[in-house]
């Protein structure tokens, strides 16, 4: 392990926020209150697609206890302009319409009006008094249907971007993408084996336990304060500023503790509405979604239709890889089809690749980011097909992947050439894992799949302050979702040479630290970690200057080692080292408070690779799959806090198992969501999963002082295909559609039964 020469990095201390979280003291989104606050609630469309002819709010406004009502009229029109939103893009014209429906309601659950009232009961009563005159329109749910000629059109102005020649036909296909490397036809001509299949995946929700919640307070002088459960309070500030024409400096957003986000809390739903209601009523307004609202109106990730064709030579070299990926974006353009296309074959060094993608709108909630957006969908299809190739060639699935693995110098089909990466090391670690070396038990079957995610860098700011007793506060601006406070404190302690418990990490609000991009893209430990390390280094320079002043030597005659200022050499003179505490005690005499700052746009995020192994059994009579053993191996750069890295891997697998086996958005014929609750939207519970074993492979990222790579997203990429591949080996039934739920698998097994009997 690369961490052996570190004192703090690679250790597993308690997280700074741990005690508060296990004792219930931590305050999440719905735990913030202000005197005199009102309750805000949203009226939602019961129709999948309907023109809003008029909205009459007069009765609601007249109800005693109602203090404000808003509709789309209360939000200014926005330009057709794209801004970054976490790992995805957002068009402001569409964002304002998603926050509050304008001309049309575009999905079951789409917000059409909101009220603020003195009690929750009055707010509910007021919603029932709002009269919306809808003209119900034909709707379309499925991507394949939405792409057909004659499909109901969601947006009259939409034209397919990326067509040559451009088309002027109204369409639901927002975008066509193409990535080409080499010559696909020439590659296929060389292949001894060609496998082609079509796959489908269902829309799945991030399933964070904490529903969206916000408290907003707008005052008469134009200032606005917001408390919100979000992955990016700067993002909330930015969106609210644009959507409501308020200067950013007037908006102060505090990120509360967060009960999961997984990408889904990088956009705004309630915040602009709560601010507008607060501005209109003059009172603070609190809004908390019900679980059904979370499912109906906050972003799931796309379902899609994919075709994959892979050709390989007899010796296991993949010579051609071709895929077409069409993803649901929900009611507005902007599915993760781009990353899906780019990640599709990124694990492999293949000469001839062709990838085509389509971004397709339909009458579903607008998708939001979900861990490695798009990559798991592509991996389901690609990794299933690679398994078919391995079967056709009678090759071990890990050996086949080793033979084709991407490595340093591999040029991807989407452009970049890989620097130091760990795909080969991860495959080897999986192959050498205790799990893979154990023979498959009778009645079980084994599946393998790999996955890739870029990981992200981007903007971060950090500050470090020394207190008068020499203890340290490290300030950053990213909500802590996965244990980042602990990782940041470990890196600060390592850099400064002080104990972990002398460093207190704090997450500042938007007015108390410079800009930070969202907690997303597995970027915080990498990019904000870099900012923290740089802020501490800046502080160390300052500390060296203070020692130089005391010793009356030049600053560069002082070095910093293990928490002490020391003379650089014996030539400097004979001075006793000065500790951080000693320097802090004399700060007033040497130049005042000792602080450090850093801001950066982090480049060089190291991509991550994962290889998963699953053993499972299939109950042939019922189609129920039991996951018996699971191992996730991943190139994690350097595991700063190994427990939280393992936790990321285990969490990704748990969500992937749900995606594989049970989770799906189910619509009725009228386009209404049928399973907007955890009873019928089946995420795995603890008893559904075995202990998930992890293998941390440390291939340090050369672009980070401690070798950090993002780790939070890769682990959700391989599970679906790993499970499908194991099911295929257990039953000889190759499932092409997700989820592989008991009724579906049972039907596929029954369809196969006569064939088996005949053989």
């Amino acid at each position, binding site marked *: 392990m690369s961490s052996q020469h570190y004192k703090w990095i690679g250790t597993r201390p308690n997280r700074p926020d741990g005690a508060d979280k296990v004792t219930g003291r931590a305050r999440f989104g719905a735990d913030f209150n202000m005197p005199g606050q009102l309750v805000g609630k949203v009226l939602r469309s019961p129709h999948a697609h309907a023109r809003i002819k008029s909205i009459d709010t007069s009765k609601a406004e007249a109800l005693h206890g109602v203090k404000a009502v808003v509709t789309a009229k209360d939000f200014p029109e926005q330009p057709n302009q794209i801004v970054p939103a976490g790992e995805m893009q957002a068009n402001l014209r569409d964002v304002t319409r998603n926050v509050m429906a304008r001309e049309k309601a575009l999905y079951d659950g789409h917000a059409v009006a909101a009220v603020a009232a003195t009690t929750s*009961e009055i707010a509910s009563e007021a919603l029932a008094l709002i009269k919306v005159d809808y003209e119900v329109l034909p709707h379309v749910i499925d991507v394949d249907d939405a792409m057909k000629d004659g499909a109901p059109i969601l947006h009259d102005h939409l034209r397919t971007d990326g067509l040559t020649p451009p088309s002027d036909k109204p369409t639901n296909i927002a975008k066509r993408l193409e990535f080409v490397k080499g010559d696909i036809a020439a590659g296929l001509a060389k292949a001894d084996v060609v496998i082609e299949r079509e796959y489908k995946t269902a829309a799945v929700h991030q399933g964070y336990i904490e529903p969206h919640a916000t408290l907003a307070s707008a005052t008469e002088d134009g200032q606005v304060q917001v408390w919100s459960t979000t992955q990016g309070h700067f993002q909330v500030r930015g969106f609210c500023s644009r959507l409501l024409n308020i200067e950013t400096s007037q908006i102060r957003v505090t990120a509360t503790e967060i009960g999961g986000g997984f990408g889904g809390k990088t956009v705004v739903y309630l915040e602009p509405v709560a601010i507008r209601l607060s501005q209109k009523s003059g009172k603070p307004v609190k809004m908390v979604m019900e679980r059904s609202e979370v499912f109906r109106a906050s972003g799931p990730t796309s379902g899609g239709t994919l075709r994959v064709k892979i050709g390989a030579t007899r010796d296991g070299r993949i010579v051609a890889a071709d895929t077409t990926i069409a993803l649901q974006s929900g009611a507005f353009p902007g599915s993760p089809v781009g990353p899906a296309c780019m990640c599709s074959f990124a694990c492999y060094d293949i000469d001839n690749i062709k990838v085509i993608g389509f971004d397709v709108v339909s009458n579903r909630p607008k998708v939001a980011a979900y861990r490695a957006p798009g990559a798991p969908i592509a991996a389901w299809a690609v990794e299933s097909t690679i398994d078919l190739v391995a079967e056709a060639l009678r090759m071990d699935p890990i050996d086949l992947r080793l033979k084709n693995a991407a490595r340093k110098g591999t040029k991807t089909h989407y452009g970049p050439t890989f620097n130091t990466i760990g795909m080969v090391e991860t495959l080897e670690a999986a192959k050498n894992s205790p799990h893979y070396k154990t023979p498959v038990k009778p009645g079980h079957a084994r599946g393998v799949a790999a996955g890739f995610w870029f990981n992200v860098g981007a903007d971060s700011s950090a500050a470090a302050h020394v207190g008068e007793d020499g203890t340290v506060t490290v300030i950053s601006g990213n909500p802590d979702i996965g244990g980042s406070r602990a990782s940041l404190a470990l890196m600060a302690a390592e850099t400064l040479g002080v104990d972990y418990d002398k460093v207190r990490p704090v997450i500042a609000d938007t007015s108390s630290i410079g800009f930070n991009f969202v907690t997303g893209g597995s970027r915080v430990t990498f990019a904000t970690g870099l900012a923290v390390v740089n802020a501490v280094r800046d502080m160390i320079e300052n500390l060296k200057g203070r020692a130089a002043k005391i010793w009356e030597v030049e600053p560069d005659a002082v070095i910093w080692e293990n928490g002490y200022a020391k003379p650089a050499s014996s030539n400097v003179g004979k001075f006793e080292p000065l500790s951080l505490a000693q320097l802090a005690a004399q700060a007033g005499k040497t130049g005042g408070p000792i602080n450090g700052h850093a801001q950066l746009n982090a480049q060089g995020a190291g991509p991550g690779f994962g290889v998963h192994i699953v053993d499972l059994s299939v109950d042939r*009579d*019922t*189609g*129920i799959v039991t996951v018996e053993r699971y191992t996730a191996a991943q190139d994690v750069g350097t595991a700063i806090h190994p427990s939280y890295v393992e936790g990321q891997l285990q969490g990704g697998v748990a969500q992937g198992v749900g995606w594989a*086996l*049970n989770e799906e958005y*189910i619509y009725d014929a009228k386009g209404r969501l*049928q*399973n907007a609750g955890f*009873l*019928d939207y*089946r995420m*795995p*519970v603890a*008893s*559904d999963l075995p202990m998930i074993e992890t293998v941390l492979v440390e291939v340090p990222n050369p672009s980070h002082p401690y070798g950090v790579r993002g780790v939070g997203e890769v682990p959700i990429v391989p599970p679906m295909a790993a499970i499908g591949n194991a099911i295929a080996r257990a039953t000889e039934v190759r499932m092409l559609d997700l989820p592989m*739920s*008991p*009724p579906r698998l*049972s*039907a596929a097994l*029954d369809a196969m039964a006569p064939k088996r009997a005949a053989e």
Partner: protein
Amino acid sequence: MADIRYSAPSTIDEAVRLFAASGGAKILAGGTDLLVQMRSGAVSPGHIIDVKRIAEMTSIAEQNGSFRIGAAASAAVIGEHAALRKVWPGVVEAINLIGSKQVQGRASAGGNLCNASPAADSVPAMVAAGATVTLQGPGGRRELPVEQLASGPGRTTLAPGEIAVAITLPARPKGSGDAYLRLIPRTEMDIAVVGCGVSLTIANGACTTARVSLGAVAPTVLLVDGAAKALIGSKLDEAALEAAAAACRAVCKPIDDKRGTIAYRTKIAGVLLKRATAIAAERARSH
């Protein structure tokens, strides 16, 4: 929302009097269905009558081999009753499948029955066991076979003001066993796609009595006489099991919904019959 009146009487007579006197009242046992329904707005009672303080309704009594389970006794208390567990393992395991540890501390068999969900887990097991429910209303007490309590999803044959007091499981001969199995896509915290209860007696290698019940395949929990007939008199051989499974499939009138297809539910009814019968027979042979 109007204010809700709450009463916690200590006798059944008082509970019945209160219940009969107020129109929009609801009985509260564990509340694990009622509170969820109130939160979702499905029901909004003006008066809640908590029956958990009534000793007769929360205790378990054994008399000459039969068991009388208070309708409001919690699943956790039932699960810890060693004698009951020994004689009616299928009924107890069905009740103990309800929800999670936390839910078990509150949920009752009476609530499961009176909530009248076709997917209620304890009900097929109690129907197979030949259980009766004692009801008390303004007009006095009466006994009803458990399968006659529900008349449709969420609907019961309870008369106005009537409360379920206790559930009685009959005494049974040596060589008897019961079992309950449900199919859920997850391993817990889920609702039965199909549930199947089987209770039978074996003498000299042959099945002498049997009762079979199915949940979640029709608007109410079903007593499947055809399946029982196929088992009685047989040695529980493959042919008898297949005939009983076929009888189960034949009575299914399920719906296609988010929880399963008609074809799947129908098929699973037969699968669970065979598996539950095997467990019940195993238990019968070792008793």
